[in-house]
């Protein structure tokens, strides 16, 4: 039994604390005033929250004390505002007075006081939300806009000025995320502009006294904006249309003036502008024709008459001394002087007529076969056009039979010295000796010579010219070849003049003859070959006293130009006339070298000697530009 009692006691002693813990009562925990609010500054409500209630029924009571008074009052109304609240009605509410409020929690075991809270009703005003929020869409010249209107909360006495409320509203598109807030002040109406056409907007309003808290947002008001075209957008559309019109018109104008625009923007590349140069011919590949055309046209001649361009004769004055000199030279080189080439290369082309050509023309002079100038194919280097030209020239030239004494084709031979010179002077100027190589076999056989008695005279090609003349005139074949610059006038001494000149009489001392230049010796000297057939010496004029003029070839420069030496007799000058040869150039020591121009090989081989006082007889062939 005792053990049973002890056991029960033990058990009870173990159980009881556990049971007792669950059922322990404590005084209530400390309550806490959460907030007090006044909606219209005339009444207010305070709420509190309870602490632990200690598992006992707990009652809460609120006591307050007004400022400057020690009287403690209890809350007059616990129910109006709900649980754990105290409602102060108008009679109990004094503004501008601090309330000191305390909540007391009481249960069977004790009570607990909350911390006192000072409350001034003026500063705890939080009005209700504005009422009757209406949103209307109105039209304006700029587009539609929203007009929002509302009323103050019912209980707030704003009319008498008891409360002054300021409002705020917020707007957003229905699908947008952020609100757009606007401050409305004390007014009851607000306009919203710049709307999205066709969008749905949400509007909300709230209010606040000038010394309190913001109210809650009013209920959302939905409004749909009708579709419209914003003024800005329509303006841009108009501008775009206008610009497109302008661009269209500009394109049309440019298209109409396509060519001029192209010409303006992309100026044509200047091509070679050479007078008389026909591109088509060049393209066709017939360069010779082109050159022919060019040559004819650009030939700065006074007269366009082709016939007039012919140099009638070339007058060569050769001194006896020189003859001897040349003879000497010739004798040395007799052996190999003969150049037997089938082709006829004029010595230095000084004579524009290749006797071969003319011979052919005149039917029989096998100049071609026999006139072969070896090294002295002086003008071989020249373009064939020259020869062709010569051919052409020769074709046009009457055969030596003609009495015109037409001379061969010297084209573009200028001589300023001829200008205005007296016949005498002219005669004198004709004294450019020109040595031309005439092959031995150039001189035709007797048979040919029969045909051409002039040849018999041994003048070779020169004789051709002479042939064409009357014997009396033969003596003076003046070839006038004046190499000058291209701008000089080409002066062709007329046969008559020369006849006169000759009539005046060449000084008999002057032996006029011509020399065959057979070769160019190593010293780059043209070595004339004596005219063996006639045996009168190279410089003997075969004609009856008439001497043809040949220019002594001074040398050959490296541009295949024969340098013709001018007799120094009259002028005392020695000018070199460049005749195209294949050798180097020699220049007369007294030559006015300064007047010699250097020219490029590609350039024309114009005679650039400016020996003004002399009438140089030069192979006008050199004048021909080679292409």
């Amino acid at each position, binding site marked *: 039994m005792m053990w049973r009692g002890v056991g029960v006691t033990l058990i009870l002693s173990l159980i009881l604390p556990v049971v007792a813990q669950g059922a322990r009562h404590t005084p209530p925990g400390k309550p806490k005033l959460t907030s007090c609010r006044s909606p219209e*500054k*005339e009444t207010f409500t305070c709420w509190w929250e309870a602490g632990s209630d200690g598992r006992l029924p707990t009652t809460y009571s609120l006591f307050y004390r007004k*400022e*400057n008074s020690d009287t403690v009052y209890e809350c007059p109304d616990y129910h109006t505002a709900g649980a754990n609240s105290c409602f102060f009605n*108008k*009679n109990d*509410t*004094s*503004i*501008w*007075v*601090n309330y*000191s409020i305390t909540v007391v929690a009481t249960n069977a075991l004790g009570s607990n006081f909350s911390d006192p*809270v*000072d409350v*001034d009703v*003026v500063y705890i005003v939080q009005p209700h939300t504005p009422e009757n929020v209406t949103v209307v869409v109105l039209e304006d010249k700029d587009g539609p806009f929203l007009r929002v209107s509302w009323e103050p909360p019912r209980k707030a*006495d704003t*009319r*008498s*000025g*008891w409360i*002054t409320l300021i409002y705020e509203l917020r707007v957003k598109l229905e699908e947008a995320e952020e609100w757009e807030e606007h401050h409305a002040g004390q007014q009851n109406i607000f306009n919203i502009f710049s709307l999205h056409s066709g969008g749905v907007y949400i509007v909300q309003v709230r209010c606040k006294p*000038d*010394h309190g808290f913001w109210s809650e947002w009013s209920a959302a008001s939905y409004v749909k904006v009708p579709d419209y075209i914003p003024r800005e957008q329509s303006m841009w559309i108009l501008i775009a249309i206008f610009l497109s019109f302008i661009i269209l018109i500009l394109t049309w104008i440019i298209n109409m003036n396509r060519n001029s625009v192209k010409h303006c923007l992309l100026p044509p590349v200047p091509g070679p502008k050479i007078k008389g140069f026909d591109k088509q011919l060049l393209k066709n590949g017939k360069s010779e024709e082109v050159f022919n055309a060019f040559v004819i046209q650009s030939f700065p001649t006074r007269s366009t008459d082709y016939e007039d361009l012919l140099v009638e004769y070339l007058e060569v004055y050769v001194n006896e001394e020189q003859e001897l000199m040349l003879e000497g030279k010739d004798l040395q080189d007799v052996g190999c002087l003969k150049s037997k080439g089938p082709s006829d290369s004029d010595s230095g082309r000084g004579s524009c007529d290749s006797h071969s050509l003319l011979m052919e023309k005149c039917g029989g002079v096998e100049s071609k076969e026999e006139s072969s100038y070896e090294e002295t194919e002086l003008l071989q280097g020249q373009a064939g056009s020259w020869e062709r030209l010569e051919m052409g020239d020769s074709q046009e030239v009457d055969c030596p039979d003609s009495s015109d004494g037409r001379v061969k084709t010297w084209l573009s031979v200028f001589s300023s010295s001829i200008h205005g010179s007296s016949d005498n002077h002219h005669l004198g100027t004709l004294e450019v000796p020109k040595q031309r190589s005439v092959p031995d076999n150039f001189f035709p056989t007797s048979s040919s010579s029969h045909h051409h008695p002039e040849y018999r005279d041994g003048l070779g090609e020169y004789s051709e010219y002479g042939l064409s003349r009357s014997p009396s005139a033969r003596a003076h074949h003046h070839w006038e070849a004046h190499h000058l610059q291209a701008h000089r006038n080409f002066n062709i001494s007329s046969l008559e003049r020369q006849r006169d000149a000759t009539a005046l009489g060449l000084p008999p001392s002057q032996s006029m003859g011509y020399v065959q230049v057979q070769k160019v010796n190593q010293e780059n000297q043209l070595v004339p070959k004596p005219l063996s057939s006639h045996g009168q010496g190279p410089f003997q004029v075969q004609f009856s006293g008439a001497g043809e003029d040949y220019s002594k070839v001074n040398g050959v420069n490296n541009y295949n130009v024969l340098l013709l030496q001018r007799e120094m007799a009259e002028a005392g000058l020695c000018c070199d006339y460049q005749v195209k040869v294949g050798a180097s150039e020699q220049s007369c020591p007294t030559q006015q070298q300064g007047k010699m121009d250097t020219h490029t090989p590609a350039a024309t081989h114009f005679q650039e000697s400016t020996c003004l006082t002399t009438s140089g007889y030069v192979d006008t062939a050199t004048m021909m530009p080679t292409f």
Partner: protein
Amino acid sequence: MVNIGQIHQTKSLKQFVYSVLQGGVWAALLWPCLLSLGVPLECKDEQGSITRCASISQEKLLDRVIQHAELIYRVSEESCTLFEEMFVPIPMRSQRNQAGYTCATKAFPIPGSKSEIQQISDKWLLHSVLMLVQSWIEPLVYLQTTLDRYDDAPDTLLNKTKLVSEKLLSLEQGVVVLIRKMLDEGMLTTSYYEQGVAPYDMQSEVLESVPRDYTLLSCFKKDAHKMETFLKLLKCRQTDKYSCFLY
């Protein structure tokens, strides 16, 4: 008489002299007004001697007075908040009756509720306002000097207090004119001292002055709100006397 209250605003001797001169000029010009302590806001119409100045209508004057009051209240609220943030520790912020500093009791009862206020006549409303205004002129001046003694008082606070005190003087003048116009009463003196305002100890320590100044600012803020409310109620009564009392 010159508005002696303006002398408080002069900080330097030069300004003081200037103001005295100005007052002298005014006195010379408005010598008929010297008989009645006139506020140089308005010219006397009935005497006809100085009728050249333009007078303002009563409504506009009341509006302006209300605007003044609103401004004063707003600035005082901002000043109180500034001071609170700077100098008052958080636990003590909501307690206004600390250390025994309470708002100075007024010599007259101020109505505490709307119903009470609605029972007050216009005359008393105006007079209450005037008394409120006049009771705060001097303490605001003191507050300015006190705040200057603070080491880290922000300039905005000082500027606001200065603004408030200036506006208060203007408000006083306006209310006086209003009283004269609305109530047809005689000139009231703009007082320098108002009884009931306890003289403050100017030499107290800064540490002690913080709660006192805080209390001062808070009480001023409250009184500014009172002025504003009274004036607005008065305005309602002027426009629509009947509907103002519906509530």
